[in-house]
């Protein structure tokens, strides 16, 4: 079932998405895409909250320690569909960014996200997550309150959430901080967004011993949407203008909306058992390795 739908997806991609996919890589280096994904004018979660979601009811708190402003979420509607939406919340300017910690969540943020996803289960409505973070916050208080535990817990629990989960990478998909709300049935990505195990700068400073090699690292890491689609990590690329979503916000938002709706519809046909079985199969198939016995 999973492999069949995977095949369907791949076919569809080949038919419909290839041009966009090619355009995505066309003329832009991975490093240029990194820069677009971080562009200060790039639309962030609250832009989409205005443009494609409505009736948003923000819910707060992890019921344990705090309400983390770096992650927002609550009930919302999208084209008539009732959902829970949860996402990283970058600011639109320096002041907001400081308040929102640049979208870098602490454990309480991940725990709030999980609470809201369980609320979606209670209300029997799907979850849409919006990913846009440089990474989980690397600070003392985050470590001491269990940054690792909170991400691990979310990844483990998201595998069991009994409603559809659609994750959309709209900007920076920064490592574990992104994955902490990123275990979905469908992973969608804007064509100028990135998703990576480590920032290009971080990778460069370790493997090249100099952060200035970030462009090389960006290339090596395969962090662009088209690279990730080829690796079977994401399910669909959402078109945005060649120079970035900020040069065509409304059109981009419309594309994001269409893609979310399309995928919610696909998932709504599944029983809970099929949904969870497919989700398990999706993640159990992640990665490329050699089987020396059979090869």
């Amino acid at each position: 079932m999973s492999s069949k739908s995977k095949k369907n997806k791949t076919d569809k991609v080949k038919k419909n998405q290839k041009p966009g996919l090619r355009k995505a890589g066309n003329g832009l280096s991975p490093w240029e895409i990194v820069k677009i994904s971080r562009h200060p004018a790039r639309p962030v979660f609250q832009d989409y909250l205005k443009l494609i979601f409505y009736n948003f009811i923000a819910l707060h708190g992890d019921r344990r320690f705090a309400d983390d402003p770096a992650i927002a979420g609550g009930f919302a509607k999208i084209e008539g569909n009732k959902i829970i939406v949860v996402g990283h919340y970058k600011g639109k300017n320096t002041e907001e960014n400081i308040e929102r910690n640049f979208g870098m969540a602490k454990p309480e943020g991940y725990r709030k996200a999980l609470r809201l996803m369980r609320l979606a289960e209670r209300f029997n409505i799907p979850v849409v997550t919006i990913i846009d973070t440089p990474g989980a916050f690397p600070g003392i208080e985050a470590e001491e309150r269990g940054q690792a535990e909170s991400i691990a817990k979310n990844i483990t629990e998201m595998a069991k959430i009994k409603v559809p989960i659609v994750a959309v990478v709209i900007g920076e998909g920064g490592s574990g901080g992104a994955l902490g709300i990123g275990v979905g049935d469908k992973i969608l990505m804007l064509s100028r967004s990135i998703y990576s195990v480590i920032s290009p700068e971080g990778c460069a400073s370790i493997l090249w011993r100099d952060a200035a090699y970030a462009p090389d690292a960006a290339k090596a890491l395969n962090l662009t949407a088209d690279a990730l689609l080829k690796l079977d990590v994401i399910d669909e690329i959402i078109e945005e203008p060649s120079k970035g979503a900020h040069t065509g916000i409304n059109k981009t938002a419309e594309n994001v909306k269409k893609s979310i709706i399309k995928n919610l519809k696909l998932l709504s046909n599944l029983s809970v058992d099929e949904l969870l079985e497919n989700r398990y199969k999706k993640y159990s198939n992640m990665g490329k390795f050699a089987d020396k016995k059979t090869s």
Partner: protein
Amino acid sequence: MAWLNKSDTEKNSPRKSLWIKCKKCQSHIFENEWIKHLNVCPNCNFHGNITSGERINLIFDKNTFKELNSNIEPVDSLKFVDLKGSYKDKFEANKKKSGLSEAVITGYGKINGIDVSAAVMDFRYLGGSLGSATGEKILRASNYSYENNIPYIVFSESGGARMQEGILSLMQMAKTCSGISRLNKKNIPYISVLANPTTGGVTASYAMMGDINIAEPFAVIGFAGRRVIEQTISQKLPDDFQTAEYLLEHGFVDAIVNRKDLKNYISNILSFYNR
């Protein structure tokens, strides 16, 4: 024991030396003494790395451990090349040097007579990093628990996700945890043992998800790297930050157990499993 030279002794101490310098207290320990103490410093109780093979000998009843999926090996799917060369060259060199084909050995065996499935990480192989083949083996090992209704144990010793596999290494966090999630649903106990170091994506996935988390003394366990945090806060971190002892205080590990006691400690816990 060539690996000791790399991981537990000063790199610039000459190989011919029969002395091991303890990373923690800097004492020079006679190599035989060090090995006799299971690579634990007799002076300060610092627990140095041990190989997966040594770990297996230590934990499993004699001749009961049967390795599975040793045929799973990495591929350089991204054709990743950095300053020092390709990922492929790197893992092949690591294989040659360590005799391992991945950073984890998986299989099943008996611990004081109790059947378990287990994954034992090995720091010698690419710093115990989590790549696609690592993740595949760890998932298969948890599925062996799932199918045979026996407890699952992972011994972690890892620097985190394996950058050279890019996003695929990140996805191994979700992959391995999807296995843990299934064990949870079936109420099969999962014990995570965290040795020095357990950091990054390994801590932020299966290593922290044990029903019972056990750490070795002084093990460094954390998510973000020490240097990254120090850059963020522009100040030095306290010495005990991200140690096993710190994690115990903050509620993330159940117990700190000396290596010599680990086998009995684990089998004591497992003896409570009542299904």
